[in-house]
């Protein structure tokens, strides 16, 4: 709380020059806004200015060759906008709905084809011994399967994204542009430019949004109230934890 506590953190992961985040490490869930956003709004404006001013200055230095930079930027921006936030979040949400559907299918005694089929079946059977309500059993099974399921989904997502992007940009060509421009204006300047692009246009990367989309239904599972015991599922998990093989 109010004690000592505010540390200045330079937001690493390549945002060094532009974004400086300040937050209290003492209690990260202190205000409503703590549940809403991470990136400070002014940093977006700063990044916008940085992007245009660096681009303008590189363009000037390139003279007749400024079209190199225009082509480079066109491709990079296209790549960034290749997967849009609304798509990514929907895809993530659907991925988790598919897990729910898989559990329902197994609960109905039907066969399903999935790498986690037998694991999920076993965990449903285990929870059925302890709880009478199917909705509770399913929520518990989803929570148990989630980490593995997420790994599989992320891999599928990455493969699809790589394929999509392969159709849109030619990474060798892109690197050639980067090198040719660097030869004139210096590599540091181009690195700075890339960083500005990232800070301005990749506020939330596609995969993160996809994963967050998966959280929606997953969170409902934790917060589902079991009709039999009137307790929330996460409470049941904590209550039941005498089983070392369990979720915890």
């Amino acid at each position: 709380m109010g004690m000592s506590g505010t540390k200045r953190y330079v937001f690493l992961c390549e945002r060094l020059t532009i974004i400086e985040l300040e937050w209290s490490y003492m209690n990260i869930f202190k205000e409503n806004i703590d549940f809403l956003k991470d990136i400070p709004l002014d940093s977006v404006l700063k990044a916008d200015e940085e992007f245009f001013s660096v681009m303008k200055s590189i363009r000037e230095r390139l003279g007749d060759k400024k079209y190199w930079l225009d082509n480079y930027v066109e491709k990079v921006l296209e790549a960034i906008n290749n997967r849009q936030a609304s798509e990514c979040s929907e895809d993530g949400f659907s991925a988790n709905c598919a897990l729910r559907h898989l559990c329902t299918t197994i609960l109905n005694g039907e066969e399903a084809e999935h790498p986690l089929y037998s694991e999920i079946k076993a965990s449903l059977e285990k929870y059925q011994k302890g709880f009478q309500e199917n909705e509770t059993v399913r929520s518990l099974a989803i929570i148990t399967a989630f980490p593995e399921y997420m790994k599989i989904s992320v891999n599928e997502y990455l493969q699809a994204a790589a394929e999509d992007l392969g159709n849109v940009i030619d990474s060798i060509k892109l690197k050639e542009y980067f090198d040719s421009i660097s030869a004139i204006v210096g590599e540091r300047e181009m690195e700075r430019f890339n960083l500005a692009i990232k800070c301005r246009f990749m506020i939330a990367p596609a995969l993160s949004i996809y994963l967050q989309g998966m959280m929606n239904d997953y969170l409902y599972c934790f917060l589902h109230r079991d009709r039999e015991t009137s307790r929330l599922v996460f409470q049941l998990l904590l209550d039941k934890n005498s089983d070392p093989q369990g979720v915890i």
Partner: protein
Amino acid sequence: MNIFIETQRFYVGMPLHAVVDKDENFLQLALKIRQQLGERAFKLDEYLATILNAANLWSVQQASEEAEVDFADIRSVCKDIIDDENALYDHEYYPALKEYIDKNRSRFQERYTLIIMACAAVAPEFMVRMAKKHFDSLAEEFNNVMDVVELRHIYRELTYAVGEQDVDRLNELIKRRFFISMAGDVYLQALTEQYLMELQYRDKETSRQIIQIMLDDAAKAPE
């Protein structure tokens, strides 16, 4: 280092293992804290329920859709001004957009280019204003659903009982698991995508992209 050297860099923002690892489960730590709390264990349950609930109050699906709708607003105002309809006269973005459009009306033959140019010119500042307004109204909505003062109160109680270190660590684990991308950041990202589409739009008359036109203008302008 060239950060766009691999295509993966265009859609992966963080190290994957940070998200996918099961090693540090927030439930393990919650259980430890619960045991220390003894009879007061229900306090932790209340704390967790409130935070998990808050994590789901504004979904990323909603956030991205709302951003698309909000951005479309700017375009509507531009169209309104260009067509001299003035129906959206009251709109807070009207004066700035009108000024831009009046100044540049005769510059472009393509109506749509003028719309996009006007949007792109004002977008960065408006986006931040739009986002701020949106966050403020959401923060208020949160107040109807959760009591943040009460939450802070429980936090204090928990830290007195089990120490700050564990509770802060618990917060961090929850954040890492459930707040991978904050809805507010996704809202900004979705606004940004609309802006990007404008920057990349190609004027039919000159075959140049909006961003090229903007930079050519900037190069000509006196410092």
